[in-house]
């Protein structure tokens, strides 16, 4: 479980996050949605420690992440996995070396054990026989799958995904979404996904937090989002004319 309490973040005096409080549970896919520039990426970067909050607290179960010392923080990081928007696979390494990278640093496993684990992770994301390929030889969807395989290599308790569907076609997006959902439920991971893809919202949004101008304006599930009365949320979800007409029909 991850708990965010009254989180503020400023850049050069400009407040980007304005007191966000939210809770993410294990075994659920929790989505952060919002327009570009609303602060959702900043929120995610604060959660994983790439940014330091101006004030507020972030709790990982019973550990206050914001006040942990560097050594303790490093230990906690071993329980985190992250899928980046552009996959962020290491160019210098093959697919299997990418997945074995965290194992090289944080386990004393033999080469065979690491290879077995890498093969298991690749099988789990339905990407066998790509071990020796380099990231630039893979399609966008395949890179995302390798990113997921690398993120789950050390059995993380917390999984973060930054726009996992960006640059993917709708069919591949759904495949990636379902994969993330399956892994979340299978290993009881606390998964936080930053997205503005409405297909993802409807497909896997167990819990959704809508961020608007640095504030959390709405919170609910994918079933509740269509019935919301929050004007800003409705403007975001039903942005196109067709969607607005559909909304009117639903009402």
């Amino acid at each position: 479980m991850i708990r965010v309490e009254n989180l503020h973040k400023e850049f050069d005096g400009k407040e980007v996050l304005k007191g966000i409080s939210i809770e993410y549970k294990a075994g659920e896919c929790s989505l952060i949605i919002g327009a570009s520039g609303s602060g959702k990426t900043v929120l995610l970067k604060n959660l994983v420690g790439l940014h330091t909050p101006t004030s507020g607290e972030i709790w990982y179960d019973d550990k206050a992440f914001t006040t942990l010392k560097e050594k303790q923080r490093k230990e906690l990081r071993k329980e985190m996995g992250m899928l980046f928007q552009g996959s962020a696979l290491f160019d210098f390494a093959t697919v299997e070396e990418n997945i074995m990278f965290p194992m090289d640093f944080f386990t004393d496993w033999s080469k065979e054990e690491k290879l077995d684990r890498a093969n298991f992770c690749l099988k789990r994301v339905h990407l066998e026989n790509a071990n020796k390929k380099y990231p630039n030889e893979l399609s966008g969807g395949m890179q995302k799958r390798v990113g997921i395989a690398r993120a789950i290599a050390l059995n993380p308790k917390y999984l973060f995904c930054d726009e996992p569907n960006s640059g993917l076609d709708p069919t591949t997006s759904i495949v990636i979404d379902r994969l993330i959902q399956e892994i979340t439920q299978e290993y009881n991971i606390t998964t936080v996904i930053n997205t503005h893809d409405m297909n993802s919202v409807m497909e896997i949004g167990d819990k959704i937090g809508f961020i608007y101008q640095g504030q959390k304006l709405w919170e609910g599930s994918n079933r509740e989002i269509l019935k919301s009365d929050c004007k800003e949320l409705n403007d975001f979800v039903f942005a196109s004319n067709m969607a607005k007409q559909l909304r009117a029909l639903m009402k």
Partner: protein
Amino acid sequence: MKKILQTTGEYWTLMLKVFQKPEKWRIFFRQCAVEGQKLTLDSVPLISIISIFIGAVAVIQTINNLESPFIPKMYVGYMAREILVLEFCSTMVALILAGKIGSNIASEIGSMRITEQIDAMDIMGVNSANYLILPKIVSSVVLSPFVMLSSFVIGLFGGAAIIAATGAITMAQYVEGLQFAFKIHYIYYSISKMAVFTFIITSLASYYGYYAKGGSLGVGRSSTKAIVAISVLILVFDLALTKLLL
């Protein structure tokens, strides 16, 4: 002034992250071998070509300037040796390496920064600065005497080659000049300078790459900034070390 202070502060903060105990020594030594090959050993052909020509040019220019019959011809070898050991094999080679290695490091690390590969390492709990930068610095500094000495020896061969080709002086005079008033201290001085310059090249290029921002244009900008800063610092340290060591 504020910018210089900020850059200096950021640089030393990064160096504190870099000079920490590696997570696993096995990975560190493996990376040192990879970086040593990529940065230093792969630069030897370029350095060899430049050294051979500079050695030859130094000899031709000295011959042309020693017209007086009262000056022994062996001074050609002596002066070529002094030019190479005192300035060319350390400062000039370092400036050449600044262009090759400096841009390589800054663009490689900068690309990793803008494609979030460095963030990925940090989130895993890997000290990205230590993993990426320390092996580059250590392998380059450790191999710097080899670079300086190979440049020196190849430069002397360049001089010998032009003498053999033109017959301007005899080879015996050239070799006598090379042995004349030889000071081993100059070799140590040159090696020391090269080690300092190599540290400047690798650490500054890494710094500019590590803090690159703004997409591919930003990577290009950081690479250019790195080479300018490295070149200026090499010249400043050349002056300081010469004053200090000679």
